[in-house]
């Protein structure tokens, strides 16, 4: 019966269209992730991570800042629990992004939703959140195509960097050792448009310097961040005493968007 193929064909076409849309959304991120991945691959090899493992980490973990931190910690001989904690700490920011995407990703089956959430980086969050806010429906084809397109740039860059890493005698003349601080600044500055966020960041920087110079070691970062977030909470309470804290950007991400009707 011809009707059967007619029913199948539009579904097939729409999946293809969604995949193409997803790839188009991920392409600019892919282009940015290739040089970033090269920097990571070189640094990983320089810190004693074999190129093969650096690529495996980019496939399995897919976390820019987390992987950079882990490479540095491996080079410094840190323990595995410490590396886990370092990753957890720098990735805590994703709690908010994941919570913000939740109402839109609700139509996905639980396993697919978990797998999708595991692959959402800062840049993918920005692109997909904007897409959802503009009224895009939840399509697993589009979301996974977008995530995988971006990740392929990260993995390809890591492989290139891992291979050429052994040819680079020293990363310093290329400024590669500044990649991680630059990445932190790139993620931090867009948050600082909000005065409470800026005050929190400045107190965190101050606490971190004080604790580090006092010899608190790696724990000083967690302590400083927790103390500064508490300062931020305290300041927001004082500032917004009569009305509930409202804001924009990062710190409202945990509240579901009001236009959600799906």
């Amino acid at each position: 019966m011809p009707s059967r193929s007619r029913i199948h064909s539009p579904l097939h076409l729409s999946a293809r269209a969604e995949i193409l849309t997803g790839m188009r959304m991920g392409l600019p991120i892919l282009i940015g992730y290739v040089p970033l991945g090269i920097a990571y691959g070189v640094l990983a090899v320089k810190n004693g991570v074999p190129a093969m493992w650096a690529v495996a980490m980019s496939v399995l973990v897919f976390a820019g800042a987390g992987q950079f931190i882990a490479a540095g910690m491996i080079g410094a001989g840190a323990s595995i629990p410490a590396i886990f904690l370092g990753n957890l700490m720098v990735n805590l920011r994703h709690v908010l992004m994941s919570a913000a995407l939740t109402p839109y990703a609700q139509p996905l089956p639980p396993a697919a939703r978990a797998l999708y959430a595991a692959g959402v980086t800062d840049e993918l969050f920005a692109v997909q959140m904007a897409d959802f806010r503009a009224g895009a429906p939840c399509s697993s084809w589009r979301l996974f195509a977008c995530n995988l397109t971006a990740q392929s740039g990260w993995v390809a860059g890591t492989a290139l960097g891992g291979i050429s890493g052994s040819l680079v005698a020293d990363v310093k003349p290329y400024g590669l050792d500044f990649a991680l601080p630059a990445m932190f600044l790139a993620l931090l500055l867009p948050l600082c448009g909000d005065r409470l966020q800026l005050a929190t960041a400045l107190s965190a920087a101050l606490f971190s310097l004080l604790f580090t110079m006092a010899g608190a070691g790696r724990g000083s970062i967690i302590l400083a961040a927790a103390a500064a977030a508490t300062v931020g909470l305290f300041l927001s309470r004082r500032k917004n005493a009569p009305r509930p804290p409202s804001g924009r950007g990062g710190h409202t991400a945990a509240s579901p968007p009001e236009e959600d009707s799906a």
Partner: protein
Amino acid sequence: MTHLELALCTGGMILGTFLPRVLPMTILAGRPLPEAARVWLGFVPAAVLAALVAPEIFLVDGRLALNTDNIFLLAALPSILVAWKTGSLFATLAAGMGAAALLRWGAA
């Protein structure tokens, strides 16, 4: 590091990455956190990033180095400017790493 250690390390990184990304969208979905926890959590990203970056750019060998010999401090200035103006990860990395490379080339 042995392959076993690298595998365990990768496992730790997977956990440290997937827990914050996956939990809110799965078991925490539809269970809103208390207001204070939500607001506190909202300040965590800026706090963690600032706490991580400050020692990198202000300290050299564990001591405060507010001088022009501190390459990372100088390279942070164009990075901050570009991050602020563009919000682009790639542009910020290019500015910061380029500045660090240039400064070292000039100092050599």
